[in-house]
């Protein structure tokens, strides 16, 4: 079979030569025939004619012969492609518009696909990833999986027969690592000793933990570094393996460095290093003391298991189910509603997946809308062009071209345009992916959003392009080749009608305008939301505040040492020249994190949830939070039993009463309220007033277990960022081994807190802009085309005495009717959608009057301008030339 194709290709490649020889062969045949007939006594001319008659049509035979060299469809395809390329090149303006429209639509959709691709098909860079599973707790009450697990549960699951082996780990372990330079905080994983034998990543140098070692204490401390940490902290020095580094001030032997791609099993949280469970007690006091290995109540672990040969995920799930039920029966107090969930490792955490799916659906809806308007545009452009080429097409139909053949040719052109759009769209996707990857989410945990584009995204873009080309090329192609020869040949356009109210092109434009209206209204709302978020009163004076964090617990200081160091830092930075006020807090405001807990007010039974802060004296001063009543904490006075509350808490717990002096019950303690402060934004900029409870930090310093450590805040004169070096130096003089992290000004923090409104505004703004651009082109195209088609009609009107203004008005009316119809539909749709958008807006009603007035006005104006250009062209028409041109 292959050799036949090779020969076919060879014939086809030498087709010109072969065609010449075939012609020669046929000519010689005719010559021989003629001679023979003349020998029989025929006159030369008669003989020649008779020979030809006998032979048949030589051209047709040649065509037929050619077909045998290469399949007809292939040679037609090549012909169509060259023809399409030529037509596209001849009309660069049209091609640019079409390609650009398609590119924007395809790019938007591919970008969304690439995000889904990243979430769905992410494979871990480990050996045999298909057998690696992640195991989590399943809450049987709400069916949510992805929760963390207790160590005793893990130890019981470990026996499951479906697995070769199973490991448990905690991926959010902070540690300060000093590698020659100033210590810095990193995030790592603490795992069972068999972690690397279960996960099986490859190593750049060295190896993982010794799987034979014990998870209990008493083993010599080791660490495995990630490739980026090794490069940045230790300059990629290979001699480090087998030597010790300092981790939280503890000497730890480096066992190995993982290969560059491996950053742990969690799909979005990156690990910088890995340490074994045996270091649990010695490493750090981050609230993970030894009893966590026996406590059935404390869930903190993630687990991963490697399936045995032949064991399926479903079988493993069934087995875990049985174990889960047995555990529920044995430990009803803790395990009553607890099941287990198993799935292929490397996927998004099931708890997170929900959130991502919502966001993803929104994105998908927006990008599909953009693609629809883009496709409508391409279809409209093609329709316009097909009508312009009606005569050419009619001529070809008249001289016998098959309709199918013509449709195919027109389709080739639209698919080619769409594929060019696909290539450009892929470029847009790449740029967009890079932009998303560079987004820093305002969390202090290292979160990875880098989206890799692989062949799947490429395939998706191209498939989408081909589909776009066929779908939106087919209708115009079928319409263009509709046999209506006589009219078209006579250049008679009246057969179609100058202004068909429900013509396909008009419907497309109305749909386009409607979609554009929805997108623009959304982007308007999100811009307004961004604006109002910017104007939100945070309840703080956020100018000139510098914040930085440190975590003495990482260095395993005793409570006394901790208190001494923290006091030192506070007193010495407070006296730095230019510093007006300095204070400490357990969590920086607007950090999206922090502790929440319930308390009960005197007499009430139901608990009220409040944000819990531990702050030093001067905190409200530093952040400019107004003290309404009462007194701030006093330095040096141990006051375990007092708290300061904000107005929101007072309103909720003691409506219409003076809260000062009243008591609340918190974690079994009775706490007296010493002061009342104004309500400030606590976690996010868009939140409703939150109840907040402020405790003296002196108490918490005995055992801080907040992941973000302690934040030092300074109110400065002048630019707060310029104080960074001085503050860092001061801290380094007090304790050079203390890692300082998350240095930022309060202004920067607020800018980060605007992340969500900003992202949604940018997203919808972009989509709205694209929609507007595309629809403007669409309206302009349709009106220009309709003017061109009505040239004769307009000419007659002008000749009969119509004034320029009337002609202008007539054309404008056509365009604006379409726009108004589309706008009305779009407005109605946006109203219907307002309930969905409401949840994403800050301080703006989903039917915001300003937006709903300004956007339609703007759209109509732009549409009017788009119509004005062809309308003026129509008004300036010279009646004589107009009538003659037909």
């Amino acid at each position, binding site marked *: 079979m292959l*050799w*036949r194709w090779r*020969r*076919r290709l060879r*014939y086809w490649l030498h087709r010109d030569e072969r065609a010449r*020889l*075939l012609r*020669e*062969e*046929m000519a*010689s*045949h005719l*010559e*021989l*025939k003629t001679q023979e007939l003349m020998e029989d006594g025929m006159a030369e001319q008669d003989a020649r004619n008779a020979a030809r008659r*006998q*032979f*048949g*049509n*030589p051209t*047709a*035979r*040649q065509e*037929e*012969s050619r*077909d*045998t*060299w290469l399949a007809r469809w292939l040679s037609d395809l090549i012909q169509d492609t060259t023809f399409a390329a030529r037509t596209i090149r001849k009309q660069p303006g049209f091609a640019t518009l079409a390609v650009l429209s398609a590119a924007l639509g395809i790019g938007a959709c591919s970008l969304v696909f690439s995000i889904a691709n990243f979430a769905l098909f992410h494979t871990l860079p480990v050996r045999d990833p298909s057998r690696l599973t992640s195991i989590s707790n399943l809450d049987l009450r709400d069916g949510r999986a992805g929760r963390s697990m207790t160590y005793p549960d893990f130890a019981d699951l470990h026996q499951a027969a479906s697995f070769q082996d199973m490991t448990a780990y905690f991926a959010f372990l902070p540690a300060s690592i000093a590698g020659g330079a100033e210590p810095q905080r990193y995030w790592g994983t603490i795992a069972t000793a068999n972690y690397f034998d279960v996960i099986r990543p490859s190593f750049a140098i060295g190896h993982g933990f010794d799987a034979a070692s014990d998870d209990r204490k008493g083993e010599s401390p080791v660490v495995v570094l990630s490739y980026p940490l090794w490069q940045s902290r230790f300059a990629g020095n290979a001699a480090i393996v087998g030597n010790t580094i300092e981790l939280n001030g503890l000497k730890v032997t480096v066992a190995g460095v993982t290969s560059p791609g491996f950053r742990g099993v969690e799909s979005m949280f990156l690990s910088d290093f890995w340490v074994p469970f045996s270091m649990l007690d010695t490493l750090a006091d981050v609230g993970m003391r030894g009893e966590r290995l026996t406590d059935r109540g404390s869930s903190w672990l993630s687990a991963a298991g490697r399936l045995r040969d032949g064991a399926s995920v479903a079988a493993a799930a069934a087995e875990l189910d049985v174990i889960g039920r047995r555990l529920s029966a044995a430990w009803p107090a803790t395990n009553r509603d607890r099941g287990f969930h198993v799935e292929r490792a490397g996927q998004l955490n099931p708890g997170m997946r929900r959130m991502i799916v919502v966001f993803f659906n929104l994105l998908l809806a927006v990008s599909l809308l953009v693609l629809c308007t883009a496709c409508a545009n391409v279809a409209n452009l093609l329709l316009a062009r097909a009508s312009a080429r009606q005569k050419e097409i009619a001529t070809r139909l008249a001289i016998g071209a098959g309709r199918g053949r013509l449709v195919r040719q027109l389709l080739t052109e639209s698919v080619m345009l769409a594929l060019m759009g696909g290539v450009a769209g892929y470029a847009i996707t790449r740029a967009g992916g890079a932009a998303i990857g560079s987004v820093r989410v305002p969390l202090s945990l290292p979160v990875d959003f880098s989206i890799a584009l692989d062949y799947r995204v490429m395939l998706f873009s191209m498939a989408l392009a081909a589909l776009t080309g066929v779908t939106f090329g087919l209708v115009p192609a079928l319409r263009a080749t509709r046999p209506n020869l006589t009219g078209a040949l006579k250049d008679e356009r009246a057969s179609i009608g100058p202004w068909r109210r429900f013509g396909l092109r008009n419907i497309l434009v109305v749909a386009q305008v409607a979609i554009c209206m929805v997108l623009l209204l959304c982007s308007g709302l999100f811009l307004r939301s961004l604006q109002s978020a910017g104007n939100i009163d945070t309840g703080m004076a956020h100018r000139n505040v510098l914040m930085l964090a440190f975590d003495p617990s990482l260095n395993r200081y005793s409570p006394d040492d901790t208190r001494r160091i923290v006091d030192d830092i506070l007193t010495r930075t407070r006296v730095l020249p230019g510093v007006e006020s300095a204070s400490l807090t357990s969590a920086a405001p607007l950090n999206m994190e922090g502790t929440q807990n319930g308390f009960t007010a005197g007499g009430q039974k139901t608990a009220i949830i409040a944000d819990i802060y531990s702050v030093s004296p001067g905190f409200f001063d530093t952040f400019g939070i107004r003290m309404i009543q009462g007194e701030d904490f006093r330095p040096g006075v141990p006051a375990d039993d007092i708290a300061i509350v904000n107005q929101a808490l007072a309103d909720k717990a003691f409506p219409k009463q003076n809260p000062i002096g009243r008591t609340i019950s918190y974690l079994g303690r009775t706490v007296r309220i010493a002061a009342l402060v104004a309500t400030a934004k606590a976690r996010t900029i868009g939140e409703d007033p939150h109840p907040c409870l402020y405790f003296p930090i002196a108490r918490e310093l005995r055992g801080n277990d907040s992941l973000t450590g302690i934040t030092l805040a300074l109110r400065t004169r002048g630019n707060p960022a310029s104080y960074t070096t001085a503050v860092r130096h001061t801290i380094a003089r007090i304790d050079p081994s203390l890692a300082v992290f998350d240095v930022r000004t309060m202004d920067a923090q607020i800018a980060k807190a605007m992340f969500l409104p900003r992202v949604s505004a940018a997203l919808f703004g972009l989509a709205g802009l694209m929609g507007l651009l595309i629809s403007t082109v669409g309206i302009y195209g349709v009106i220009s085309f309709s003017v061109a088609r009505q040239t004769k009609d307009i000419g007659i009107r002008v000749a009969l005495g119509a004034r320029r203004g009337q002609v202008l008005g007539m054309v404008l009316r056509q365009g604006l009717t379409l726009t108004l119809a589309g706008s009305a539909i779009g407005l109605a749709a946006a109203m219907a959608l307002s309930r969905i958008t409401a949840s994403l807006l800050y301080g703006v009603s989903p039917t915001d009057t300003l937006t709903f007035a300004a956007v339609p006005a703007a759209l109509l104006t732009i549409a009017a301008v788009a119509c004005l250009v062809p309308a003026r062209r129509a008004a300036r028409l010279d009646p004589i030339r107009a009538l003659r041109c037909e």
Partner: protein
Amino acid sequence: MGKNDLLPGTLDMMVLKTLTRGAMHGYAIAQLLKQLSEDILQVEEGSLYPALQRLELNGWIEGEWGLSANNRRARMYKLTPAGRKTLASETARYRQMTGAVARVMGMA
């Protein structure tokens, strides 16, 4: 082929058959076909050429430029071993077929 009132494939088979007599050029094949069929098969002579291209492409015949009897440049075709094999199987198939048709028509 479609325009000739022949059963599909029969022209190819007949060309192969004529070439069993030795190498010959297109015109000679046409003449021979006409003679052998005693002028009953009215084949457009031109349709021979696509058939020749097809057969050559399939590797059943081989064409080579040479001189005809009256010293004109002509393309001489000869049967290849693969062509012989095809002819044999085609002939068998054809016999079966005509036999079947004849039986249906009640002429067998």
